[in-house]
C-alpha cells in the first residue's frame, strides 16, 4: 500500500474535495467512472473514535488545517493543499513544544506554542484508500478519503494524487467527481458547518462596529462593552488553568477599558469615570502578581541560558518555589472569579455599557469620534516626540520609563481609533511605532525581572542551604539582566530616530492634523 505520511512522494496533490455525505464510497464493488474504461476501487477502513483539536483561538483551523487525535496518533489535514500528515503520540500533551518532532508537529508551525491545544468536538473518523485502475489493473490515480460522522451528520473529504504520466485520467476523474456532486473546498470551516460543530470565533481584538462620524460617547461605550465581552469569554479558561493566555487576554481587555476611560476623558462625567477606573483598577490589581509569575515561568529556559551552569541548581530551586507561589495566586484569583461579588460587578458593568444613555454625560460626549480622537493623538504624539528628543546617553532611566508609558498610550489611542481612519495608513503608523515600543518594552521587562525574584525571597530562606544557592542564582541572573537592560537602553535613541522621520511626521499630519484643522465640530 502507499502512504501519504512524512516523506515527499513522487506525486503532487491535486484535487481536494468534499461530499456532504459519504454515500459515494459506501459501494463495495468498483465504481465505473462515467463512460471511461476506468474504475474506482475503494479499500475501506474502520470507523474510529476521534477528537477534533484546536487552541482556544482556533489557530489550527484559521491556518487552513484541521487536527485530529485518533487513539494513539495525530492526524493533520491541510484543507487547501490536501496534504495529510500523521504522527504517533502515546503520551499526554497540551502544548506544541511537548509534542515530539514529526510530520504533524513540523507542519503546525505558526500555531502558538503557549496556547493549550484542547478537544473541540468528538467524532467518528474513517480513512479509506481509493485507486483508479485501467483495464490492465494499472493504478492511474490514487485517492485518500476521510469520512467524518458526528451524531447523524456526515462529511466525506477526499484528495486525489496525480500519478506522473496519467494527468488525463485524473482530469476524467475530476469531471466525474464534480458531476457526482463533489464540492471543491478550501475552508475547513465546512467541516464545522456540516457536522454541526460550533465555532468559537474568538478574537482578543474583535471587529468594532463604530465609525468616525459617531459621537465619541457612543464609540467609547462600544469599545468598553466589546472588551468586557472578550474578558468574560476568558473566565472559564483562567479557572481551568488551560494556559496562561486566558489571563493575558483578560488583562488586555481590562487594560483597554481603563485606557479608554483615561485617554478619552471627558466623555462621561468625571466622578463616574473616576469610580469606574477605580473599580477596574482594583480588579486588575488582583491579577498582577499572577501574570508576573506566568511571564517569569514561561521564560524559564531563557533564564537558564543566561546564567552559568553552576547557577542552574539555584535557579531550579527558585523556579520550584515560584511555581508553588503561582499555584496559590491562581487559586486566590479563581476564588475572585467565582465569587458572587465579582459576578454582580460584571453584570452591573455589562448592563451599564449596554447603552450609552445608561452613563452620565461628560463635557466632550457630543464630539465627533474622528475629530476628537485625532486631537488626542496629535497631542500625545507631540508629547512622545518632546520626551524622546530630550533623551541622550546621560538621561535618567525614569525619563525612559516615562517615554515608554507615553508610547503605550499613543499606541492604545491609535488602536482604538483605527476604525475612524483610513485603515492601511493607520496600521502602517502603528507598525512604525512598534519597533520603538518593543525596545522600550524590553528595557522595562529587564528592570522588572531584576527586581522580581527578590520579592519572593523570604527571610527564613536566608539560613538554609537551598536559600543560599537560590540567592547566588538570583545574583547571577540579575547581573545578566542588568547588562541586557543597558543594551536596550543604548538602542532607544537609535530606534526613536527611526520613528522620528519626515515620512512619519507627514503621515501624522495627513491623517490627524488635517482632520483637526479642517473639520469644525
Amino acid at each position, binding site marked *: 500500500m*502507499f*502512504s501519504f505520511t512524512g*516523506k*515527499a*512522494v*513522487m*506525486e*503532487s496533490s491535486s484535487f481536494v474535495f468534499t461530499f456532504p455525505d459519504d454515500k459515494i464510497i459506501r459501494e463495495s464493488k468498483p465504481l465505473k467512472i462515467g463512460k471511461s474504461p476506468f474504475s474506482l476501487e475503494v479499500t475501506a477502513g474502520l470507523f474510529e473514535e476521534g477528537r477534533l483539536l484546536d487552541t482556544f483561538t482556533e489557530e489550527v483551523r484559521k491556518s487552513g488545517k484541521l487536527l485530529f487525535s485518533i487513539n494513539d496518533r495525530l492526524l493533520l489535514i491541510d484543507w487547501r493543499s490536501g496534504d495529510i500528515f500523521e504522527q504517533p503520540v502515546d503520551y499526554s500533551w497540551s502544548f506544541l513544544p511537548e509534542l515530539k518532532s514529526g510530520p504533524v508537529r513540523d507542519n503546525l508551525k505558526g500555531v502558538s506554542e503557549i496556547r493549550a491545544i484542547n478537544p473541540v468536538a468528538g467524532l467518528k473518523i474513517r480513512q479509506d484508500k481509493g485507486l483508479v485502475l*485501467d483495464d*490492465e*489493473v*494499472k*493504478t492511474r490515480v490514487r485517492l485518500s478519503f476521510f469520512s467524518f460522522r458526528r451524531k447523524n451528520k456526515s462529511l466525506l473529504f477526499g484528495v486525489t494524487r496525480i*500519478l*506522473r*504520466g*496519467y494527468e488525463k485520467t485524473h482530469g476524467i476523474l475530476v469531471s466525474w467527481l464534480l458531476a457526482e456532486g463533489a464540492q471543491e473546498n478550501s475552508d475547513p470551516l465546512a467541516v464545522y458547518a456540516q457536522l454541526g460543530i460550533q465555532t468559537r470565533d474568538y478574537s482578543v481584538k474583535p471587529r468594532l462596529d463604530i465609525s468616525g462620524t459617531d459621537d465619541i460617547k457612543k464609540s467609547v461605550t462600544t469599545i468598553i462593552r466589546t472588551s468586557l465581552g472578550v474578558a468574560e469569554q476568558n473566565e472559564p479558561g483562567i479557572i481551568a488553568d488551560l494556559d496562561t493566555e486566558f489571563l493575558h487576554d483578560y488583562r488586555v481587555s481590562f487594560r483597554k477599558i481603563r485606557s479608554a476611560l483615561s485617554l478619552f476623558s471627558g466623555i462621561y462625567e468625571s466622578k463616574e469615570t473616576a469610580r469606574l477606573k477605580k473599580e477596574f483598577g482594583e480588579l486588575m490589581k488582583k491579577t498582577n502578581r499572577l501574570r508576573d509569575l506566568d511571564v517569569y515561568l514561561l521564560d524559564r529556559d531563557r533564564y537558564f541560558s543566561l546564567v552559568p551552569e553552576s547557577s542552574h541548581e539555584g535557579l531550579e530551586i527558585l523556579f520550584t518555589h515560584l511555581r508553588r507561589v503561582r499555584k496559590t495566586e491562581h487559586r486566590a484569583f479563581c476564588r475572585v472569579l467565582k465569587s458572587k461579588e465579582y459576578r454582580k460587578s460584571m453584570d452591573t458593568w455589562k448592563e451599564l455599557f449596554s447603552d450609552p444613555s445608561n452613563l452620565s454625560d461628560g463635557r466632550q460626549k457630543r464630539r465627533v469620534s474622528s475629530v476628537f480622537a485625532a486631537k488626542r493623538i496629535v497631542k500625545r504624539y507631540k508629547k512622545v516626540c518632546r520626551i524622546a528628543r530630550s533623551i541622550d546617553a546621560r538621561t535618567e532611566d525614569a525619563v525612559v520609563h516615562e517615554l515608554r508609558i507615553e508610547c503605550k498610550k499613543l499606541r492604545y489611542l491609535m488602536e482604538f481609533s483605527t476604525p475612524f481612519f483610513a485603515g492601511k495608513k493607520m496600521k502602517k503608523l502603528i507598525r512604525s511605532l512598534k519597533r520603538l515600543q518593543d525596545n522600550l518594552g524590553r528595557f522595562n521587562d529587564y528592570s522588572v525581572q531584576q527586581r522580581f525574584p527578590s520579592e519572593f525571597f523570604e527571610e527564613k530562606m536566608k539560613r538554609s542551604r537551598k536559600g543560599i544557592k537560590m540567592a547566588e542564582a538570583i545574583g547571577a541572573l540579575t547581573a545578566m539582566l542588568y547588562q541586557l537592560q543597558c543594551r536596550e537602553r543604548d538602542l532607544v535613541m537609535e530606534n526613536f530616530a527611526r520613528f522620528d522621520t519626515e515620512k512619519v511626521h507627514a503621515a501624522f499630519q495627513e491623517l490627524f492634523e488635517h482632520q483637526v484643522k479642517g473639520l469644525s465640530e
Partner: protein
Amino acid sequence: MKIVACYSNKGGVGKTATSVNLAYSCAMDGYRVLLCDLDPQGASGFYFRVKPSRKLKKQAFFKDVDCFTGAIRASDFENLDLLPANMSYRDFDIFLSRMKNSRSRLKKALKSVKNDYDVLILDCPPNISLLSENVFRVSDRIVVPVIPTTLSERTLEQLFGFFREKKYQKNKLLPFFSMVQRSKKLHNETMVRLKKKYRKFLQKSIPFSTDIEKMGLHREPVLSYAERSAAAKAYRKLWREIRREMDL
C-alpha cells in the same frame, strides 16, 4: 544522480527481470528511481502494466523537454517511475546529458514536480551499438547477468575485450550469475572458474526460479508478490552489493 545499467550482449539472461527488481529494491530503500526501458523489445513497461504512449513512436520526440517529462509514467510503487521508450542513441544522448546537467530544463522540470531522481536504472538492449557504447560511457556501474554456461563465458570475454579495445573503464563492469541451477555440475564448475578469472564478480547470484518466470503473470516485481521467495531475497542482496559498490 547515479546511473546503473543492466547490460548483456546476450539475450534471455534475465536482464529485464534484474532491472525491474533492482529498481524496486532501490525505491524500497527510499531512493527516487527512474527505470528507463532502452530495449525496443523490453518488457520493463509490461512488468509494471504501463502501456507505451502512442506519441513515443514519433522520431523527433525526445528533442523536447515536455515530451521527456511527459513520457515518464509513475509505477504503482512509491518512489519508482518508468520511462517506457523506444530511444535511438541520439535521443538517449540528449536525454542523458540533460538528466546529468543540473541546470538543464529537463532537470528543472523534474525538480519542479519533486521528480528529481537519485538513481537511473537502464534496461539495455542485448547488442553492442552506439546506444550501448553511450551507456558504457555514462553509467557509474554496469551490472551484467551471466548464466554459468560456456556460451555465456564467451560473451563475457567478448564484453571485457570490447572494453579493453575501446579503453572504457573495466571496473565499471559488475558481472553476476543469473538463472543459476546448483544441481547442474556445469553451472557450479563455470562459476568457480569465472570467479577466479574476473575478480569483480558480485558475490550474490540469482537462482533459476519459477517465481521469476511468473513475473509475466503477475506483472509486478518478484519482490512485490513473492517477497519471501529465495529469488526475491537474492535480488535484495544483489542490490545491496551494488549499492555498496556505488557508495550510495
